[in-house]
């Protein structure tokens, strides 16, 4: 336990400093719950006004399971977009803010290695933030589910019977957890790049983090008339963005051949692990991870040798 304690504290420190990492997702969760309340109320009002009738609402088709699954992942998708933006800005700030206010001198006066420091930032972006998001999604979905069940019950529809399949719900959460792990790994080159820029820039981290890759893409397009970089950089992030909440088939993309249908309905209409696991077999995933590791090593080196602004 004593060996873990400093690392645990480093992770905790990040949450102290970057409160927005947990406040913003909580706000999103509250909005989702408010939205459910509104939706539930609207449902009751609509039933009373005869806009929908129990009969035509109550005939839930066999796709209900699939519909529930998609709805749950779509809700997770909202959280995920917010979380990714938070992590993006967090990582750009994480090795820069303390250099700017010179508190890096305090942090580096402690017996903490620069490797541990940089990895604690990465851990926050790759593990803490998605894990926290996952918990919020589950809570929001439970609360939202209860609200809709009650609302539907008021108008005489038993959702428990019609639409909620415990197996589907739990499976969706497991798939979501799995997808979040994949997403963190898939996006590693970007996280590494932001850490590198954060450790390197003397100001305007965002400008450097965005302009260098965009500049490289433009130069390649104009000078060499090729688009390897844009395919690599923008294509990779495009796929990454589809991981959670996405069931977009990317068959048109070379190299994917349907592997991306991780959430695509299987023959049974329920989503399986098998399709999800395919992602780990895509070489692009591991090439990205390799590039990410190089960026992270660069960030550690910069932290060690160039920590002054």
């Amino acid at each position, binding site marked *: 336990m004593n060996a873990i304690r400093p690392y645990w*504290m480093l992770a905790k420190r990040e949450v102290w400093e970057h409160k927005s990492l947990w406040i913003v997702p909580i706000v999103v969760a509250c909005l989702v719950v408010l939205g459910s309340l509104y939706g539930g109320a609207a449902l009751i009002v609509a039933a009373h006004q005869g806009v929908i009738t129990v009969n035509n609402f109550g005939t839930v088709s066999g796709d209900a399971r699939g519909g529930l699954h998609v709805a749950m992942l779509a809700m997770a998708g909202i959280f995920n977009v917010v979380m990714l933006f938070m992590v993006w800005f967090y990582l750009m700030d994480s090795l820069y803010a303390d250099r700017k206010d010179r508190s890096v001198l305090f942090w580096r006066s402690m017996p903490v290695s620069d490797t541990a420091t940089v990895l604690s930032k990465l851990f926050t972006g790759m593990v803490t933030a998605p894990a926290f998001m996952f918990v919020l999604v589950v809570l929001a979905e439970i609360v939202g589910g209860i609200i809709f069940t009650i609302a539907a019950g008021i108008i005489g529809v038993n959702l428990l019977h019609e639409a909620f399949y415990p197996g589907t719900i739990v499976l969706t959460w497991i798939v979501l957890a799995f997808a979040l792990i994949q997403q963190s790994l898939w996006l590693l080159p970007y996280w590494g790049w932001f850490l590198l820029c954060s450790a390197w820039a003397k100001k305007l981290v965002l400008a450097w983090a965005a302009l260098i890759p965009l500049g490289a893409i433009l130069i390649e397009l104009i000078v060499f008339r090729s688009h390897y970089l844009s395919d690599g950089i923008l294509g990779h992030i495009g796929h990454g963005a589809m991981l959670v909440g996405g069931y977009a088939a990317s068959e048109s993309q070379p190299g994917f051949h349907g592997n991306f249908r991780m959430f695509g309905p299987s023959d049974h209409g329920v989503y399986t692990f098998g399709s999800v696991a395919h992602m780990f077999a895509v070489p692009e995933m591991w090439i990205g991870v390799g590039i990410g590791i190089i960026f992270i090593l660069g960030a550690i080196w910069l932290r060690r040798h160039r920590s002054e602004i």
Partner: protein
Amino acid sequence: MSTLIKARGLTKHYGALAALNQVDFDIEEGRIVGLIGPNGAGKTTALKAILGLTEFDGELNVLGHDPRKGREKMMNEVCFIADVATLPRWLKVANAIEYVEAVHPRFSRARALHFLERTKITQHSRVGQLSKGMVTQLHLALIMAIDARLLILDEPTLGLDILYRKEFYSNLLNDYFDEKRTILVTTHQVEEVEKLLTDLMFIHNGRIALNDSMEGVAEKYAEVLVNAERVEQARALKPLHEREVFGKKLFLYEGVDQGKLRELGEIHTPSIADLFVAKMKGEMQ
């Protein structure tokens, strides 16, 4: 007594400028060493090299570690305060204590709380809400609660008002310093540390201009207040520096027999500030 820091041929260039030029020095355990020099003389560079915060050429051994390689282990036994207000504004006092307690194996929470009790700092305040003086008190409380062998202070009282400055050094001396600990301090406010120091090191243009214990300084350097009629006689003894005080002349000598000097007038040990001015002017001539 063992040597804590040993520097041989310590050199650091910033472009063409040599911030440290082939510097040798030893710092022994249980000493309070003042590193004094004009701006840009290389003081901070020397401290940064010792702390492993900058690269350098030459040999440097700090508590048995090369700061370039063994920094992380070295920092278990080395603390430093780099001028005031390097604690981040968002940090809560309670969190600061919790953090240091978790990452520093030699930190004592009880000691930190004991030091904080004497101040007006409360656990739930944020660093950003504290005055500059209080931030320094907090930082000092955290650092003094660490059982370190070497404490490095770089202008620790810069910009503080006089009450906090006095308190800072008296706390260090009364509650922290003992024969097992060593303090290395740089400051512009030489008068403040004058009575504190056991050793004095002047650094100028990247070189050590003086490196001696305070006893050594008292033996080697003397100031004599000379009446007008004996001025020529005083000048014949080749003073390092002379200046006028109330119509008399004050001469500062290096390495001149104190018996001889007594014949000229009343002698005393020069203050660090006067010695510094004399040495620096001597260097420049």
